[in-house]
């Protein structure tokens, strides 16, 4: 269950740690607000997957990306998108199924996307977003955009065959692609050792001819540094794979109380708190005084509080918007069932 390999030694400068901390804290607080949104009955459904405990993966890898890079995420992708620079209010509105959300209320938590930030989409299909980065890699190579495309997914996606098909293609074609597995030790109620015999996932990647690494998510600087090496290598035509180990602090989705794991395990798991660890490091290394960090946290809390207000105040999408976006603007919209019925029934000449 735990990562036994030594993590790559951090090459990021100490100065980055504050930025990484800030990103992680924003993710943590945002996710806490998502939980509130649900409790207040304002979320669209209960299929909300919080990335609390996984902030270092999002912050660390995002710090290694360039603006022109693209990515896909899994169903637990809020943190990654925030780390990439998303507007948390539009995210929250989307999670509430509102018109002001990133996807006009059609996508929700599991289908957030933003082409402006290179976010090719979150996915509710485990593994579903992985092959898209192969295609994005083909585009980048052919159109010489210089972008790397990253697929973020959970340990559960290691069970999906399409991952191996995609890794094989990326290696074969030397695409600027990085596969990022956020190993939070669980896929729903299944502990990772209950889903596979060999948890050294990087071996699989190497067997397909990719660069492969594993890193401990406790250490956001190590994540950032390893990610940087791999993203840079991918940009140079050496695709890679990175597994980041962490712990899913809470249940799988909002209704899940995790009865399948022992409380002691949870408590121990929550000790692996990348946000706390980074905060302690900042203090210890004298990079920021406690008061400054407190102020930052307060500022972030206020920012994230506002996202709920924004979502709550936003309107639901108008019913007619239902027929838009099935096909491109300019293409005829699908005929509504009611319209069809009206027409058919009014035709009768009996």
């Amino acid at each position, binding site marked *: 269950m735990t990562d036994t390999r030594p993590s790559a030694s951090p090459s990021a400068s100490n100065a980055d740690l504050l930025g990484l901390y800030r990103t992680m804290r924003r993710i943590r607080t945002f996710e806490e607000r998502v939980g509130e949104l649900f409790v207040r009955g304002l979320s669209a459904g209960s299929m909300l997957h919080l990335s609390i405990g996984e902030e270092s993966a999002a912050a660390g890898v995002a710090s290694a990306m360039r603006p022109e890079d693209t990515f896909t995420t899994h169903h637990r992708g809020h943190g990654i998108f925030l780390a990439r620079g998303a507007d948390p209010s539009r995210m929250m509105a989307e999670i509430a199924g509102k018109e002001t959300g990133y996807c006009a209320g059609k996508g929700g938590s599991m289908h957030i996307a933003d082409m402006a930030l290179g976010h090719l989409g979150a996915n509710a299909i485990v593994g579903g977003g992985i092959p898209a980065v192969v295609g994005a890699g083909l585009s980048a190579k052919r159109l010489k955009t210089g972008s790397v495309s990253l697929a973020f997914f959970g340990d559960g996606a290691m069970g999906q065959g399409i991952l191996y098909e995609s890794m094989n293609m990326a290696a074969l074609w030397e695409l600027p692609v990085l596969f990022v597995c956020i190993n939070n030790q669980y896929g729903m109620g299944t502990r990772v050792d*209950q*889903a596979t015999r060999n948890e050294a996932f990087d071996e699989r990647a190497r067997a397909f001819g990719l660069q492969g690494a594993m890193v401990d998510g406790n250490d956001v600087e190590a994540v950032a540094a390893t990610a940087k090496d791999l993203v840079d290598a991918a940009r140079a035509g050496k695709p890679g794979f990175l597994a980041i180990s962490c712990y899913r602090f809470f249940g799988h989705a909002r209704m899940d109380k995790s009865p399948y794991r022992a409380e002691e395990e949870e408590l121990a798991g929550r000790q692996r708190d990348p946000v706390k660890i980074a905060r302690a490091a900042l203090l210890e290394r004298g990079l920021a005084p406690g008061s400054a960090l407190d102020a930052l946290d307060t500022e972030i809390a206020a920012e994230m509080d506002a996202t709920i207000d924004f979502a709550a105040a936003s309107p639901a999408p108008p019913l007619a918007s239902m027929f838009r976006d099935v096909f491109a603007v300019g293409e005829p919209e699908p005929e509504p069932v009611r319209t069809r019925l009206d027409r058919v029934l009014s035709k009768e000449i009996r």
Partner: protein
Amino acid sequence: MVQITYRDALRQALIDAMEADERVVVIGEEVGRYGGAYGVTKGLIDTFGGDRLIDTPISEPAIIGAAVGAAMTGLRPVAELMYVDFLGMTMDQLTNQAAKIRYMFGGQIGVPMVLRTQGGTGRSAGAQHSQSLEAWVMHMPGLRLVMPATAEDAYHLLRHALTMPDPVVFIEHKALYTRKEEADLTTAKRPWGKAAVRREGQDVVIVTYSRQVHYALEAAEALAKDGIEATVIDLRTLNPLDMETVIEHVEKIGRVAVVSEGPMTAGVAAELAARITEECFDFLHDPVIRIAGEDIPISVSQELEAGSVPSPALIGDAVRRLLS
């Protein structure tokens, strides 16, 4: 008679089948320790153990493929797909393998497996977790297709499915799990291949299945207040399809609405409309009308989600128009 939920009836069917037949195993994601994403298999692992409640990695194609192999070699697997929306990645194993093996091999062997899954709208689960994909299955020769609307049927149809010599796709509706009903779980019941007439009325026949049965009944109650009496037929199984019962009522009444939650175009409603028209053309006063899901993906927004599939109001309106 017992008071039981759809979920508990399904669970009881699995328990009884597993007790009756040692070969029955359940294989799928989270079916064991977790007890199923919708709780259908809750607690079964305590009774039957991890050898019979087989928790799998997240590998839908291989889950179905493994069930095929297990069924060919002496087990009676119930393969669970957490959402029918994941059918897409298993269609090769389901249709090129499970459905065709008996035929391709000249009748040497069958694939007695049940693919249990759930579909439909109602939980703001979005475009990839709310679909109704039964039309794909109904189109494929070699597969049986079951879509129970009630707890009692859920029980008996699942028990029966587990005696069938051929692959059965068993699709539950996510919005029905908590529905509680009077149910007779004695084994005398035989709803397999026999439509249920849930309500009789002389003005219109509504033919449907799964959750839409309840919507149709709601619509019928409202219509009754306006003096319109509807017959509501619950098909229960789409393969085999009980056209006899449908024809009998259609020939008497001559006005028909078919209702399906799946997208309208090339969906189950199309097949029902076409067959009813073929068989009963001279008895029809009006064309069979189709009330179905919109030809659009499902949104996460509750408003759009609910608006994109038939509702009691839509059924009622359409029937009213039909009769006016």
